[in-house]
């Protein structure tokens, strides 16, 4: 066990730091030390940066990536820990924007724009709900106390540890084998799955072609799901007489 820990401290250190940070930030009444949590969190982020995110490409791309990643992670942590639901929604908007930035880095500009548009609408509506429905004075008790803070964070970080361990093992293996073994795709299947030239990857045309040739059924199903969800939402939404806002 000890040897395992010493072998994998690269993995365990950021996890432990992150867990302490999130655990400290969990809403549990008036007493929590944000400063301490911030220190732990920053330390954890730095650990992740140095042990997990080596410089991978042009400087500008790295800077963008690190910025967006930090935005996403910090925003996520604050979203799930903030006492005020309005702030939480705002943090989620930040996370969304950061993820859109990461999409851009993943040569998916269309998704980036589409996500902004979709989530702008969704989050605005969420905002309305939060503002109109949430507590009337101050933050409510249920926003100030988390349920199972310790167990939940522990299991969440255990899951994260499992995922990152996988990344470490197979990522290292893949790097050793020249990057071909990461996701072993049987020969001949990749070419059929909407494979496009790398320079063409980000264009709307290639996404559209992929969507309406290989995944046309998926698109149809998505459309059906949307229709059903619309009907469902209309049916579920309670009606009220006009002028009684």
């Amino acid at each position, binding site marked *: 066990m000890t040897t395992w820990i010493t072998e994998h401290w690269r993995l365990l250190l950021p996890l432990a730091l992150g867990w302490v940070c999130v655990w400290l930030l969990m*809403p549990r*009444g008036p007493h929590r030390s944000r400063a301490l949590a911030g220190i732990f969190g920053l330390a954890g982020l730095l650990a992740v940066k140095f042990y*997990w*995110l080596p410089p*991978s*490409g042009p400087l500008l791309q790295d800077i963008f990536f690190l910025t967006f*990643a930090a935005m*996403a*992670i910090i925003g996520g942590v604050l*979203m*799930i820990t903030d006492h005020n*639901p309005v702030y*939480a*929604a705002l943090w*989620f908007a930040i*996370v*969304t924007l950061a*993820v859109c930035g990461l999409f851009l*880095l993943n040569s998916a500009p269309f*998704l980036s724009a*589409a*996500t902004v548009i979709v989530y702008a609408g*969704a989050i605005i*509506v*969420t905002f309305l709900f939060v503002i*109109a429905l*949430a507590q*009337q*004075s*101050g933050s*409510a*008790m*249920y*926003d100030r*106390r988390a*349920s199972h803070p310790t167990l939940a964070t522990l299991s969440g970080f255990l*899951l*994260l540890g499992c*995922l*990152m361990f996988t*990344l470490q093992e197979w*990522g290292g293996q893949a*790097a050793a084998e020249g990057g071909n073994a990461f*996701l072993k795709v049987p020969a001949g299947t*990749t070419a059929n799955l909407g494979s*496009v030239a*790398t320079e063409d*990857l980000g264009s709307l045309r*290639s*996404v559209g072609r*992929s969507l309406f040739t*290989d995944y046309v059924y998926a698109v149809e199903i998505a459309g059906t*799901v*949307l229709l*059903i*969800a619309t009907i*469902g939402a209309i049916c*579920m*939404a*309670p009606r009220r007489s006009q002028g009684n806002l």
Partner: protein
Amino acid sequence: MGDLSHLQGQLVVGAILFALGAIGFLTRRNLILIMLSAELMLHGVSLNLTAFGQYHGTAAGQAFTVMVLTVSACEAGLALALILTLYRRRRSLDVNLWSNLGEPDLPKLAQDILEVSPAPREQPLPKLTPAGPLPRYPKSAPPAAKP
């Protein structure tokens, strides 16, 4: 074939977002935030998909991300409609109020469930969430209302 270290970075961020979303789903008791936490998990998944799509040079990842986007939009619409319905019943967003399916005589998880008294059925005007500096948490019980 894309850049392996870039892919690894994206995957790490995706995994962290997913785990954070899971934690948020488990800990937040506000119905709306539970839904947002689920969306956070979806973000992590989308990130994974696009990263792998770029790594393999296919548009499949983006196509699936479009699916994820669709599903998350549906989820948002339905979940908000549900939340609104639930809120109208109890005048509260606390998920722990909806534990009717549990065994009846178990001790409650949180002591503060009973603090939420049911609000009046109809409110003439919505009382909006205040934006200013938060009031200090009462250290002791609030003073009795003046007669």
